[in-house]
């Protein structure tokens, strides 16, 4: 079974634009729906709060690993650590990598999340499974919101 996630999308925007959306903490917060305390700095912890409606009580925390301008942005985190009652800090984090490549029409973005082999697979909170439909709907609302309010 695959224990990593890989996504590739073509974006009709220059690499510099995508890089800014990924690494400027305010811009990242806009599309990822998280309010971050300050800029991303390599090797430092990035903290903030989720701004998805209904999930505002949830903290965001990641450790910035690499920032190679317009090429690679990576951080480690505890994916979807959305149960405030669970201490995720003892779990080995997963690694999220955004790789950018220039294309004729814009930018190719390659996303990988790896390291799931170190994660207890069953810690997905039951509350989350129950809320899954609602969460998915929230994400769709966001997409509509972002598209309509550029």
């Amino acid at each position, binding site marked *: *079974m*695959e*224990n990593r*996630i890989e*996504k590739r*999308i073509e*974006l*009709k*925007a220059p690499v510099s*634009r*995508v890089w800014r*959306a*990924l690494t400027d903490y305010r*811009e990242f917060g*806009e*599309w*990822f*729906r998280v309010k971050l305390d300050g800029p991303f700095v390599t090797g430092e912890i990035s903290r903030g709060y989720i701004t998805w409606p209904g999930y505002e009580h949830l903290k965001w925390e990641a450790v910035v690993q690499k920032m190679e301008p317009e090429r690679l942005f990576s951080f480690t985190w505890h*994916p*979807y650590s959305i149960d405030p009652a669970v201490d995720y800090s003892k779990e080995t984090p997963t690694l999220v990598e955004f790789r950018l490549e220039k294309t004729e029409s814009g*930018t190719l*973005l390659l*996303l990988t*999340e790896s390291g*799931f*082999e*170190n*994660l*207890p*697979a*069953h*810690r*997905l909170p039951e509350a*989350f*499974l129950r809320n*899954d439909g609602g969460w*998915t709907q929230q*994400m*769709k609302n*966001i*997409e509509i919101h*972002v*598209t309509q309010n*550029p």
Partner: protein
Amino acid sequence: MSRKTLSQAPVFRALGDETRLTLLAKLCCGEPYSITRLTEGSKLTRQAITKHLRVLERAEIVRRVHAGRESLYQLDPTPINEAKRYLDVVSEQWDQALSSLRAFVEAP
């Protein structure tokens, strides 16, 4: 088998090995197998196979059932299904996040 025990099971790591995947392929249909049968057709020794079965057993992917003096191993599909469902959820969240990113950077 409690939820708490399950939460400690390193399922993804247990699955990240060719030999163990081969063993699971044999066990896939739910029929219990003895170590002897699981060793058949393998280049590995009985001891090596037993070691791999222990890893799967600890992750609660297979369980040991006793048939007389012999130990049989049987697949429990629950942890694998849950692991897969977990990855599906994370994967879907990324689809949504990347689609928000697209809307954000492609906005005029």
